[in-house]
């Protein structure tokens, strides 16, 4: 599944899920451009780790809530690499409030970073994907399921998933494949923003049929698959990575292997 010679931009690619995606794409041979929001040292650290795979790793600071910063980022990519093959719209931000407590600033910020930036990045990326390319949007189960104080992010992810479908069709003639990966809560620092309950990870493990929480590397694996030729005919889909969590209506506890059970005597 080599991505050698490809150039990939990972927005929010310096930490958490973004870092795992960056490092996995680099390990497959892609040169990586790591967009980061504020922490330059964290981005440098990820770039060094990516570079150890023998690829070029470049960091660009850009607040994706601002269209002019997105423009500047792509101008830099164009000047430095002259092309782009893979775009991973991973950067996400959000204001953790219930619907009744959301104000317009919080709504705009969340929608701008999580949905509008994905559109603007895709527009600029498509122009640089001269030989076709791949766009992967990182969503979450909150686009379909209701979670406490997740309103703005959940709605923005629903918009991102809808955008995925529209882009998939509109960019298909240019040989650009667009899909999304949606995850249950992933064990990262960001998850702590939505819960102060130390027991949450444990309860999520016990209610996940797969028996463990989703890790950033699980998302990265799906992203790499979607970037490969093996996924050539997958278009506009949302691949859910949740260990089966969203399929269980009630808190699920594995009964263990009981062998073959016959319903009739």
């Amino acid at each position, binding site marked *: 599944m080599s991505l050698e010679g490809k150039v990939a931009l990972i927005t929010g690619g310096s930490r958490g899920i973004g870092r795992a995606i960056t490092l996995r794409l680099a390990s497959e041979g892609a040169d990586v451009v790591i967009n980061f*929001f*504020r*922490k*330059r040292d964290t981005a440098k650290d990820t770039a060094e780790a990516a570079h150890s795979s023998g690829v070029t790793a470049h960091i660009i600071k850009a*607040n994706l809530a601002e269209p002019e910063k997105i423009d500047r980022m792509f101008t830099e990519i164009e000047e430095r690499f002259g092309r782009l093959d893979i775009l991973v719209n991973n950067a996400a931000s959000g*204001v953790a409030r219930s619907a009744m407590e959301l104000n317009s*600033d*919080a709504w705009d*910020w969340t929608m701008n970073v999580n949905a509008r930036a994905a559109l603007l990045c895709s527009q600029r990326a498509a122009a640089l994907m001269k030989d076709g390319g791949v766009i992967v949007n990182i969503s979450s189960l909150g686009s379909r399921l209701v979670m406490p104080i997740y309103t703005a992010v959940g709605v923005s992810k629903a918009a991102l998933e809808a955008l995925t479908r529209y882009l998939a069709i509109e960019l298909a003639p240019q040989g650009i494949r667009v899909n999304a990966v949606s995850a249950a809560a992933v064990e990262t620092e960001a998850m702590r923003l939505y819960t102060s309950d130390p027991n949450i990870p444990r309860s999520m493990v016990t209610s996940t049929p797969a028996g463990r929480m989703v890790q950033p590397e699980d998302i990265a694996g799906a992203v790499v698959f979607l970037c490969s030729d093996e996924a050539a005919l997958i278009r506009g889909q949302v691949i859910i990575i949740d260990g089966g969590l969203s399929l269980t209506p009630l808190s699920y506890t594995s009964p263990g292997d009981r062998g073959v059970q016959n319903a009739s005597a």
Partner: protein
Amino acid sequence: MTVSPSVEETVKKIVTRIVRKQEGEFKPNATFKDLKADSLDVVQILVAVEDTYDIEIPDDELQNVSDMESFVACIERIIANKNT
């Protein structure tokens, strides 16, 4: 000759623009809470200040910020360290 605005003047403009207050409400002893700045406002203020001065404000520096006076002092210190 152009005189650059002081860090305090620049920070005052950034903070009051983002929290939608009159510049007169930016007092040395005013806290972010006094200015009704929520967590999103604070993030936007930090990003705007960082972009303006091409600096990074470390989280541990912010631990010592209690009001606008200490916030401005923190930024001045980071700018001074950058230029040395």
